[in-house]
């Protein structure tokens, strides 16, 4: 059944819901990247918790005028209004009072959420409310989702994604260097408004699928995971979109296999799985790669130090150094240098002296910055440049 869900063989509606969740995840990952890079990610937590009163009030209003209280666009509208108010409250508290943003987020989040829970309790003692299943908006559920609801979610996700692509440049500039961005004539307020508006849109669109408690995870985890893979903002956005999309897809598919499974937590767990993979396996910033690099670096340092000691006739005491040099055939078992060892030691010594000259000459500043005690000079300079350096190289002892 799981395989069928993942390969979209559970029927037309389930397929649509899965694709809608994937689109939502892509949009959330891309949007979240800019929140994360401008260190505003937690604002989205306040936004999402502030949707609850709006959902319930929207439901009550639609029932009061005799409509279907579960009409999704109506619930989304209600949630957008109350989330907008929450966002406004956070912004007002941060800019107009001395409260820091984290305190403002905490205050707004808890008050709006508490109020929403009270309203939810009231609705659930009403007859019409009992069967409404509004509590599924807390953790998300895709079971029994309608065709047009899935379309709304996919369409909303696609629209947000398009807007992120359109605004990526000003949002990157503002996230990296707001002062310079303003100097370029970019309105900081407009860009922040757009960024928060997109986060709000993701929250509202994602309510039904991921639920308001966990939507923040879909905004934050994908960019944080993507950051392990790249040093370029465009690539981070794309990878975050991919991770978010995969999480949404897998989460929706898995939760379709059992009606009682809430979708939000499964999506978040899928995203977390991808985060752990990134943390461990990413080639640049990943933990394993960093550990391997450190180990390899340590060995190179030991070998080089051993060679330099050989060249100056100093004894080598470090067991690791000796072991590495023996294994490389540079010294014999009794610690005496082999012919190859002596030759390499002489080369290392010459390289080191060239580096010294290079580093004392401002002409070679760019090259000198690459000095790490290990890199052979030939990798940094051309033969001509080395010849120029060698003119400063006098026979040892003559200085």
């Amino acid at each position, binding site marked *: 059944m799981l395989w069928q869900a993942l390969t979209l063989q559970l029927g037309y509606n389930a397929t649509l819901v899965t694709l809608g969740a994937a689109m939502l995840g892509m949009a959330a990952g891309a949007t979240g990247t800019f929140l994360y890079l401008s260190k505003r990610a937690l604002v989205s937590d306040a936004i999402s918790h502030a949707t609850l009163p709006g959902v319930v009030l929207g439901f009550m209003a639609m029932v009061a005028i005799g409509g279907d209280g579960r009409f999704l666009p109506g619930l989304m509208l209600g949630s957008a209004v109350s989330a907008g108010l929450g966002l406004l409250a956070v912004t007002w508290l941060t800019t107009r009072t001395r409260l820091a943003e984290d305190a403002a987020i905490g205050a707004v989040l808890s008050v709006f959420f508490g109020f929403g829970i009270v309203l939810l309790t009231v609705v659930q003692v009403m007859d019409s409310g009992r069967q409404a299943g509004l509590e599924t908006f807390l953790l998300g559920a895709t079971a029994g989702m309608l065709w047009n609801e899935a379309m709304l979610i996919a369409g909303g996700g696609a629209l947000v994604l398009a807007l992120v692509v359109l605004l990526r*440049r000003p949002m990157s*500039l503002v*996230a*990296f260097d707001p002062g310079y961005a*303003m*100097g370029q*004539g970019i309105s900081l307020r407009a860009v922040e408004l757009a960024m928060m508006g997109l986060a709000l849109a993701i929250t509202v669109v994602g309510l039904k699928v991921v639920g308001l408690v966990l939507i923040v995870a879909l905004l934050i985890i994908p960019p944080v995971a993507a950051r392990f893979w790249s*040093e370029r903002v465009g690539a*981070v956005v794309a990878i975050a979109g991919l991770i978010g999309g995969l999480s949404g897809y897998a989460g929706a598919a898995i939760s379709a296999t059992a009606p009682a499974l809430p979708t939000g937590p499964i999506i978040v767990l899928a995203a977390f799985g991808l985060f752990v993979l990134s943390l461990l396996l990413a080639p640049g910033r990943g933990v394993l790669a960093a550990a391997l690099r450190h180990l390899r670096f340590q060995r190179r340092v030991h070998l080089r130090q051993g060679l330099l000691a050989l060249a100056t006739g100093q004894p080598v005491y470090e067991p690791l150094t000796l072991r590495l040099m023996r294994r490389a055939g540079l010294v014999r078992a009794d610690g005496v240098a082999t012919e190859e060892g002596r030759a390499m030691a002489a080369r290392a010594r010459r390289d080191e002296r060239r580096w010294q000259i290079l580093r004392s000459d401002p002409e070679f500043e760019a090259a000198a*910055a690459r000095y790490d005690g290990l890199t052979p000079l030939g990798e940094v300079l051309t033969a001509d440049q080395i010849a120029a350096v060698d003119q400063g190289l006098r026979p040892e002892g003559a200085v």
Partner: protein
Amino acid sequence: MALELVGSAPEQNDDLPLSIRGLTVSYGEKPAVFSVDVGFQPGQMTAIVGPNGAGKSTLLKAALGIVTPLSGQVRCHGRPLAEMRARIAYVPQRASVDWDFPARVLDVVLMGLYRDLGLLGRIRGQHRARAMECLARVGMDGFAARQIGQLSGGQQQRVFLARALAQGADLYLLDEPFAGVDAATEKAIITVLKDLKAEGATVVAVHHDLATVPDYFDRVFLINTTAIAEGPVADVFTPENLQTAYGGRLALAQMGGVAAG
């Protein structure tokens, strides 16, 4: 001594690359900059000098519209700032950004082309070539593909200058470009700034090292919340004026150095 007092004839400053009138900026109840009138001369290098907290950076930020003044007017070549953005290049303080941001050196310089590229314009070979040229001018072309977090402080400062160069502006506003940089960087930056001046650009820099003012700059603007004096280094950069700007905070030895310089 022909000391040109600031604000003596602000109505004549209208065509200057940058003229500021009646500028007051306050972060709370205490103004950081109070009622400053100053004009910066075209094709000259002017240092903004004053003690810590004297409002030097704030003046620059207000001139760029980064902080909103309580009162006052900023004009660029006699026109409102908003129309002249393309002609102003800003080099902010290095410490003001997160250097772990996912960007390579070349990407940061390409940010200087934002106004040319717009929202959706594609970055083409010609843009990259221009960015590389600017990197070469500051001696950083060998670092184009580096992640910005791997640079030293001086190198970061040079990348910021390259980004400003990419804009092709004729008014350069720099906030402490020499703060905490190595000697090679200081030399590279001053060479570029003097070249810009030779090309006719106007350079205004917040500067904290009094000893190098006469070597590096043509003019000085002394500020301590209010404007003290603006004019050629020889006329304005005097022990008396510095005493006024710094109060008792300037060591006698420094004053001696200034008088001798």
